[in-house]
């Protein structure tokens, strides 16, 4: 890099070391408004026997000299006009003191920054890092190369002059998180990341857990030329809630307890014993512990309670058994569980395939259990495959890494003391901690990092942080994100829509970026309320309603659910909750 950048004109003069050891300050008139916060600058020094360009990031800019306040007394008269009256050249008047956080010189061999720990001396010239140098040192991958993910452009260089290209390998292997307030563009950014992972250079094996059904528009990838090469085209498989199902025996005892959270101690005792029994019997007869159904479990509950009643005189499990059986039956009615069938893993996970698991219209607790079961199956399969405990053709053989993207992650791993009780949080922590060894990457997307478990967040090494206004959320990020320096986090409330801080091993240095435009349509737009309300009163809409009302027939399907009492429409308990009203003595 020697001498490569020194042809530039200096933009400022070093003043000396800053308040912190890794900081220095320089003074600049900044006539061209080039020294923005987040901008990259460098000075030259000799380190390790070579001339080095030591790069740093601007973290603060404060005025060192300003016009007197009195010059701004008239809003129509700019202060520099008054200064000019007194013979001051306005372009020379303002002076800024800029604080720079040192990154170091870029070591081509190590492909990372090395801090020489030599702050500039007073008077040393400071230069702006040229676009092409910044592109080379900031990005671990070049644009369009295999294993790259082009997510946007450096914010401080307008005109898309410096593309920000992440290492897709680091992105998926060391986990990532996208954090933003509502409306800051997190789903949009997630879409960009997904697009990059599905490009021919990556061909990812990707599963998106989509609680709001926002990612269905990604199927447009299949028809776009940007995603096609050498006969490859990504497959986008959208799995709607009615097609999501698992084998009942894939539930752990913890899952069952979680799904039936209102169990008493006796019910829990019966369930644990019966659960162990069906697994033992399955092992004895089929050679694995998962070959049983909910009926087997219910039978085991009844058998075990009978045995106990015979064993212990006076024991009466009748009410608890009834209540437990009722709960198990209700659980077995769920469309998510089937006796022996489940979505094959290789249907969900396949290289070049983006599977969108839509979980809208699904109860939050069910969503948590589905995610928990999915992550567990994936983890077990990858562990068994890597350790060569399964062979091609076996159930649970998955011979390629996989990446799972979780929307509304705070829902699956909520923070606070209750997090251990949430089944998906436990499983998520296991995958985040151990998944890297087995090629499982996780991406978390959340609009409330304050509500997200901090251990979970801190495991995500690459962070995309968009606009965050809530101070609790900001503090959570500051404490959980190790690689993000505090100064760059100060920018969070000031970011506009589509602007993000990217930090972590997928990029050589933290950077403020403008997210690139999506190639596929965005599915997460907010609904335009006023527009739709006005449309309600459009003549054609009113006419349509009049026609509808003209054909109204009392007693037809839609109105059956309601009956009127005293002029008010009310619904029965059964209609609301889909079950009979509970009665006393159910063993609680």
């Amino acid at each position, binding site marked *: 890099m020697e001498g490569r950048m020194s042809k530039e004109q200096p933009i400022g003069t070093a003043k000396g070391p800053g308040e912190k050891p890794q900081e220095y300050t320089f003074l600049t008139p900044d006539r061209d408004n080039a020294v923005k916060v987040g901008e990259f600058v460098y000075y030259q020094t000799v380190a390790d026997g070579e001339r080095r360009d030591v790069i740093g990031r601007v973290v603060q800019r404060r005025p060192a000299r300003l016009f*007197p306040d*009195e*010059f701004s007394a008239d809003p129509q*008269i700019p202060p520099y*006009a008054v200064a000019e*009256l*007194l*013979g001051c050249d306005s372009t020379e008047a303002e002076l800024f003191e800029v604080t720079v956080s040192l990154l170091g010189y870029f070591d081509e061999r190590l492909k990372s920054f090395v801090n020489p720990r030599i702050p500039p001396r007073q008077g040393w010239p400071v230069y702006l890092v040229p676009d092409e140098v910044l592109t080379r040192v900031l990005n671990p991958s070049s644009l369009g190369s295999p294993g790259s993910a082009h997510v946007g452009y450096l914010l401080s260089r307008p005109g898309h002059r410096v593309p920000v290209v992440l290492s897709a390998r680091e992105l998926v292997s060391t986990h990532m998180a996208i954090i933003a307030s509502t409306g800051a563009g997190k789903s949009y950014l997630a879409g960009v990341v997904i697009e990059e992972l599905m490009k021919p250079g990556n061909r990812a094996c990707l599963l998106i857990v989509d609680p709001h059904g926002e990612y269905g528009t990604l199927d447009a990838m299949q028809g776009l030329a940007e995603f096609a090469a050498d006969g490859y085209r990504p497959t986008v498989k959208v799995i709607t809630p009615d097609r999501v199902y698992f084998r009942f025996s894939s539930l752990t005892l913890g899952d069952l307890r979680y799904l039936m959270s209102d169990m008493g101690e006796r019910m829990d005792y019966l369930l644990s014993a019966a659960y162990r029994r069906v697994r033992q019997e399955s092992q004895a007869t089929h050679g694995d512990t998962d070959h049983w159904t909910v009926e087997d479990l219910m039978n085991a509950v009844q058998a075990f309670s009978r045995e106990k009643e015979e064993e212990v005189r006076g024991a009466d499990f009748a009410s608890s058994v009834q209540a437990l059986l009722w709960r198990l039956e209700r659980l077995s009615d769920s469309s998510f569980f089937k006796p022996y069938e489940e979505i094959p893993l290789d249907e969900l996970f396949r290289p070049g395939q983006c599977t969108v698991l839509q979980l809208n219209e699904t109860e939050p607790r069910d969503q948590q259990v589905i995610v928990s079961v999915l992550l567990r199956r994936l983890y077990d399969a990858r562990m068994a495959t890597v350790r060569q405990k399964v062979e091609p053709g076996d159930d649970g053989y998955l011979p390629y890494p996989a990446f799972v993207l979780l929307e509304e992650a705070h829902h699956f791993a909520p923070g606070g003391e209750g997090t251990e009780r949430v089944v998906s949080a436990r499983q998520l922590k296991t995958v985040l901690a151990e998944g890297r060894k087995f090629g499982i990457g996780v991406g978390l997307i959340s609009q409330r990092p304050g509500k997200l478990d901090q251990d979970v967040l801190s495991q995500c090494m690459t962070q995309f942080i968009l606009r965050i206004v809530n101070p609790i959320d900001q503090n959570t990020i500051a404490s959980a994100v190790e690689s993000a320096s505090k100064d760059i986090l100060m920018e969070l409330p000031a970011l506009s829509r589509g602007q993000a801080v990217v930090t972590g091993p997928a990029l050589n240095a933290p950077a403020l970026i403008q997210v690139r435009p999506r190639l596929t349509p965005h599915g997460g737009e907010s609904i335009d309320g006023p527009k739709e309300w006005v449309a309600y009163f459009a003549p054609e809409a009113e006419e349509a309603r009049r026609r509808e009302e003209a054909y109204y027939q009392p007693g037809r399907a839609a109105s059956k659910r309601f009956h009127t009492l005293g002029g008010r429409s009310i619904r029965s308990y059964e209609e609301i909750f889909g079950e009979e009203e509970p009665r006393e003595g159910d063993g609680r």
Partner: protein
Amino acid sequence: MLLGRVVKSNSHVDYVVQIFAPGEVPDPPRPEDHAFGSFVRVAVGQGEDQLIGVIYDTLLLNPSYGTLGPRLSGEPHLTAFAPDYVPETSTVVGVAVVGWRHGQGEGAVYHQGVPPVASRVGAEVFSLEEEAFRRFHQSAGGPRVAYLPRLAAMANPAMPELLNGLLSRLIETFPGDAGTLSVLRSNLDWNSRLARK
């Protein structure tokens, strides 16, 4: 108009000018011609360069005042008994030099600031014409009073009023820049009237 002559200086930019008395010149200056805050030009040698200054102080000199000794004749009888007696009273003004002019007429170039050369004792002092006043304060971007901070720093209790009057005159001369000049005038007013209290 010819106002007087330089009689001494207190510094490179602070001259004392004696105003011509009636009888010394055919058309002696009236008091309003050398009023407080008036701009003047002072000849420099025999060349075309002239210093430009502003009258910031006036002193009335009367050597007879304080001479309380016996006198043979009273004031009315002096003409008869001592015809060579000339009254030595005079008016002197302080002129702060704020710039200089190089050349004359349309080709003259005006500079604000401290002139590199000084005038001399006996140099003639004239009123600065209205057009010259305008050109002296005219710059490419509008009016300019670069000498103002130096004037404001002079130890003279009447200086705030002088500067106020000067800026008011500039506002009349440059009505298009009245807003900018008013900000400066208000600022000076505030500082002189309130900030010093």
